[in-house]
Every structure is written in structure tokens, then in C-alpha cells.
């Protein structure tokens, strides 16, 4: 996964170290700048069974700040924001591994250190009865939901 570079960051930033799956650690830089969700768009990505990105749509590329080449093949935790509690993602993986839909409000980290909130639905892609990949479809969340989750996630940290 790409390292954060100070020269990519826009505005004042803080640092955090994320402990990711498989013993992976990542130093991230993040700011207090929120980028509003683009009206009318869906942000879509697909991962393989291990959470490595295999497909992204144009809106995904635009919102994440990364190029498509940087995203494909990278773990989906490339967007992990330090304010997100790990229990949320544990629940996500437990749910989709059972073959069910997971839905939640997620705060994502952009390459430039800013963040954006999404309402995500993650589903297993089932072909010939087997899970072959996972897809997440994101839409614009309401401010009420975002405020609720901001408080909830802070309490789960």
C-alpha cells in the first residue's frame, strides 16, 4: 500500500498509525477538511475475497484522490480513517462472509488527508453458488446519520 506523503496533504494535519489486518501498519496523515459526497453519484468498488481492490468506478477514483492504478491491487484499507473503530470492519467482514449484506455509515480517508462520509452497502458477489468477490455501493448519507455515527464511533475507539 502507498505511504502517505506530506506533500500530498492539503492543510494542517495530524498523524496516526493504523494497525491493519495481517500485522500491517500504516502511518496516515489526516486533516479536518470534509469533502461533500457528490450528489446523484454512486461510488462503487469490488474486491477479491481477501479485500484487495479489483475494480473501481470513476466516482471512486475522484473521491479517493488516488489514481486507478494506485487503487487496483491495493487492500481496501487504503481508505481507512483513524476515526473508524475496528469493530465496524470486523462486523462488515463477519457479515459478508456469512453471505449477507452489510450496511453502515463509513468515514473514509482521502489521499490528500481530507475525509468523506458515505452510506455503504457491501454485498458478496455470488456466482454458481459461491462467493467470488465483494462489492461495495456507496451513496450520500444524511447529516443526522453522520452526526449519530460521529458520536458512536468516538465512543467505540
Amino acid at each position, binding site marked *: 500500500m502507498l505511504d502517505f506523503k506530506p506533500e500530498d496533504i492539503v492543510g494542517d494535519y495530524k498523524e496516526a498509525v493504523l494497525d491493519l489486518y495481517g500485522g500491517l501498519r500504516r502511518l496516515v496523515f489526516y486533516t479536518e477538511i470534509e469533502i461533500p459526497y457528490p*450528489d*446523484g*453519484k*454512486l461510488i*462503487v468498488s469490488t474486491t477479491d475475497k481477501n479485500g484487495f481492490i479489483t475494480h473501481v*468506478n470513476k*466516482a471512486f477514483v475522484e473521491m479517493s484522490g488516488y489514481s486507478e492504478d494506485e487503487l487496483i491491487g491495493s487492500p481496501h484499507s487504503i481508505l481507512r480513517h483513524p476515526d473508524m473503530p475496528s469493530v465496524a470492519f470486523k462486523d462488515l467482514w463477519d457479515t459478508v462472509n456469512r453471505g449477507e*449484506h452489510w*450496511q453502515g455509515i463509513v468515514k473514509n480517508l482521502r489521499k490528500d488527508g481530507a475525509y468523506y462520509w458515505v*452510506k455503504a*452497502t*457491501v*454485498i458478496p*458477489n455470488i*456466482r454458481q453458488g459461491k462467493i467470488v468477490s465483494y*462489492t*461495495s*455501493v456507496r*451513496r*450520500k*448519507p*444524511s*447529516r*443526522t*446519520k453522520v452526526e449519530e455515527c460521529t458520536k458512536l464511533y468516538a465512543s467505540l475507539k
Partner: protein
Amino acid sequence: MTFQFTVSPDFSPDHISGWYIFNTWLQKQTGQGIHLEMYNNFQTQRVAIENDAVDLIYANPFDAAMLVRNKGFSPLVKPFGVSDEAIIVVNADSQILDVADFGPGTKIASTDDPDVLLMGMIMLEPADLNAQNSVKIGCDSYILVAKQLLQGNSDVGIFLAEAYDNLSNMVKSRLKVLVRSEISVIHHCLMIGPKLSPRKQEIQDLLVGMDMTDKGREVLKSLGFSGWVKVGEEETEFMIDLMDALSV
């Protein structure tokens, strides 16, 4: 044996005769008796599908899941460059400038086109609106959705983008667009059922090559299309997954 062909009931009134012309063309090209049955609404069409009375369908994306997963249909083609998009519209005099400003009890005018309704309701979610806390005003056509807004009976209308764009400038000047979807991967699709599937390849080739002859282009024109492009199984599976994710 005569096969049964049907078209998603959200077809534009301008293209009804086009579908009959298309069916005549298809019968001639395949040497096969095909009867075109146009249903007035999605409910009666779904009953026909359930009773295996449909062999070929120009299907709404919302019905693709049921057709593929329960009824053994497979995709043939989609019209070139056409996707289903929805638009959220208010009266030009409305105080609302952003979807987030709507509150519970909002009156929503829409048709029963299932994919447009789904996309439209998703675009209203930033206001925490859903089927339970809003009032749906069902309309038989997009013209009537516009009328509801102009007469002030509805707070907001959900349109198929193409239908909105085709309203007269006079009507559009009295309306205001709040959001236009840019989803681009949700589209209608011509699908073939199990009884006709032995001829799938042949029919698909005929359709893909349709824009290569004068006659074919003329028929396409009557449908408002410039050509057909092949749709693969995985493209359809992906669209079904997407619709599935949007339905929760």
C-alpha cells in the same frame, strides 16, 4: 410454435409503434412466429413472467434479478449509449434548494417504474426520507408527475431523466432540478428465456448487426435507438448485484 415477446411497461408512448415494427422485423429475420404483448403495468407483466408466458423481454433493470435467477433468462443486448438515470425535481417556486431540506411528510410524485423509483428514493435519503415517512403520489405518466408539481399537489417529483428532458420547454421553465443521477451502469436489457435459448447466439448476432442495414437502422430509429450492443452474463450479474445493494 409462437413465442411471446414483451416490453417493460415503462416504454415511452412515442415508441409503442416502434416496438411493433421491431417485432415484425424480428419475425422476418428469424422466420419465427413471435407475438408482442404490451402490458399496461409491471404487476400484470410479472404475472405473465411467473406463468412462463414470456420468452423474450425488453426488461427493466429492476426485474433482471428475477428473470435471471428465478426464470433462467439470459441477456442479449442493450441499446447503445442509453442508461437509466433519475432526476429529482421541484416546482420552480419551491423554497427547497437542497434535497436535505425536505422533512417527514414530504409528498413525492412518481410513476411505478421500479428502477427510477429506487434511484429517486436513494437521492432523497440525504433528507432521511423513506417510504414510511413520506407520502407517495402515484402517477400513470411523467407528464402527470410534472402536473402534480405545477399544481402544487406534490413537493417533489421523481423522473426518468429521458422523460424529464423530453418535457416541453414551457413546462421545464416552471420546474427546478435538484439532483440528476450519474450512475451509468443501470440499463434496460433485451433478455431471452429458456424456450428460445437454443437460438440465442443467432438472435444476438442479428441484433448486434442491425445497424448495418438501411432497414435495420430504420427500425432502430422508430425505437429511438442507434444500435444494440451485446450484454454479457457478468455485466448483468453485476447490475443485479448493484440493484440488490441499492434495494436495502
